[in-house]
């Protein structure tokens, strides 16, 4: 297998989308993730409005927890959708 985790089950045939190694928040040394910044949070939800798992975004566990809370707060305030319009 050689490279292991970098190539998924499909081997080199499928391109890897959004596979990141480092946590974005660790890179910028964020202590807190603001729920009011919906543009920033938007990157971490799918088109349907679901939270993207950390295994795809590469976010570390600590920041993922903060992110999840921020997203849920933003949803409550209608800054982010629970379910996107397209799915409804």
């Amino acid at each position, binding site marked *: 297998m050689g490279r292991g985790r970098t190539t998924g089950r499909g081997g080199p045939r499928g391109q890897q989308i959004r596979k990141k190694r480092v946590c974005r928040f660790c890179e910028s040394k964020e202590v807190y993730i*603001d729920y009011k910044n919906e*543009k920033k949070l938007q990157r971490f939800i799918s088109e349907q409005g679901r939270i993207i798992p950390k295994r795809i975004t590469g976010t570390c566990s600590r920041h993922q927890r903060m992110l999840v809370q921020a997203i849920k707060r933003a949803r*409550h305030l209608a800054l*982010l959708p629970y379910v996107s319009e397209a799915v409804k």
Partner: protein
Amino acid sequence: MNQQSKRSYETIFIVNATLDDAQIEHLIEKLKEFLVKQGSDIQSVESWGRKRLAYSIQKKNNGFYVLCEFSAGPEIGAKLERYYALEENVIRFLIVQLTDKALRARREKAAAETETPGDEPAKPLPKTTPPAADNADGENNAA
């Protein structure tokens, strides 16, 4: 109330956007008055203005967002919740306790912004911009 028992809070509420500006202004004044009466210190009040909601709340697609920061004793949560519930034109609200981390993040951000303005990649309009990254553990919310 002694100073030590005060905690930092932040609250956002969404006002029915069909009201005119004077009525909204009046509502904000009323909230300020309420908070002061409860013995809290208001640090800032920020109006984000009318925004489109990500989903409709009470069949409304737009809302007027108001953010308020204050410090008060721990009993303010329940009181403020009740206040909002009785206020018909508030269609959604969130009360968050600002933890030390959140406050620190905010201070750092504020310091960084004064040093290098225009550092933020996605810089929204200044009027509608929330100050900085913050979040908290203590949370009261209701719909």
